[in-house]
């Protein structure tokens, strides 16, 4: 099980990477995406923690569509997973139409509507942009606001299912107490309308495939349409 969106004190989180990683290990999580915001400056290496896979996730928070294109171009080679801070419809749509983006985070953030329409969902499917179900949004909202969040997420799941776009469920935790095991995250996606098998895939196989693919690309083992399948020469 993977959790691709976890904040530590390297971004807006409270706890250091070590503490978050220890809690994730205790919850049976195989890998966590340590999210860091990118604004054009260099991004440092992640500290290594034994027994868990730490994934370098970069979040870009553009103010307009042009900035999104520029930041995604610059950040792509620095990130194992490239995410976009969603919430604005124009940004959401541009992110769905950009094949360099891996995940569109919380498209419904701060909105009364779901932030996505059928055009975005179709573009996300074509460009292999995964739509995120952010658990923190549900956890930190109450009553009326929580119903809006749940309703928006249900709509996004329905759209993604119809057009075949990937969904990723993540905790979005800002401290180690915000983490949840992958199976719990899958449960909420299941209740929101995805069947159980697909819901479990949103926190296991889908993130795993994304990470493997991007790591191969960063290691120059995979290009658009071409992939090294046998590294016999490397071993020799």
């Amino acid at each position: 099980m993977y959790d691709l969106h976890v904040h530590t004190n390297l971004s807006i989180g409270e706890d250091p990477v070590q503490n978050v990683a220890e809690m994730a290990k205790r919850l049976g999580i195989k890998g966590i995406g340590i999210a860091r915001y990118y604004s054009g400056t260099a991004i440092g290496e992640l500290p290594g923690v034994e027994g868990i896979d730490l994934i370098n996730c970069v979040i870009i928070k553009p103010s307009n569509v042009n900035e999104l294109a520029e930041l995604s171009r610059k950040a792509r080679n620095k990130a194992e997973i490239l995410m976009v801070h969603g919430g604005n419809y124009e940004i959401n749509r541009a992110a769905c139409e950009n094949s360099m983006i891996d995940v569109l985070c919380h498209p419904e953030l701060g909105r009364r509507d779901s932030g996505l329409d059928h055009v975005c969902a179709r573009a996300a499917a074509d460009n292999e942009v995964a739509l995120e179900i952010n658990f923190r949004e549900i956890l930190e909202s109450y009553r009326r606001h929580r119903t809006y969040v749940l309703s928006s997420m249900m709509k996004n799941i329905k759209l993604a299912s119809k057009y075949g776009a990937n969904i990723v469920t993540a905790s979005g935790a800002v401290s180690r107490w915000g983490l949840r095991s992958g199976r719990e995250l899958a449960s909420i996606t299941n209740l929101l309308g995805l069947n159980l098998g697909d819901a479990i895939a949103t926190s296991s196989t889908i993130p795993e495939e994304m990470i493997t693919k991007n790591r191969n690309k960063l290691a120059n083992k995979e290009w658009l349409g071409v992939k090294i399948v046998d590294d016999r020469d490397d071993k020799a």
Partner: protein
Amino acid sequence: MIVMTKPKILPPSMRSSKRYLAFEIISDATITYNDFVNAVWNSMLTFLGEFTTPQAKVWVIQNLFDEKSQRGIIKCGTNYVEHTRVVLSLINMIEEKKVIIKILGVTGTIKSAKNKYLAGEVNEL
């Protein structure tokens, strides 16, 4: 003449089927049974509402809750396992103490839940 003061226990074929979720409370402080039960009820009524809560038939089994290891068993209806998982995952604070409820597993009988999940060693952070 014998006067019955309470209804007879239903035969097994008439009883609704159940699932048992073994859980562990992860927290820096010790959480008591009563505090935990209150938190479960609050979370259930908030998330599932007054209509779905009785259908889920969630029940925290008191004599199987171990305050030392912070582990226990929750009973729920067969079709409400995912609802119960979500309800438990939405508990993040009990009596001002930060917590995570970790589901250790789901079983069909109390016996297997006890043998599989409550008999093991406590996983210390």
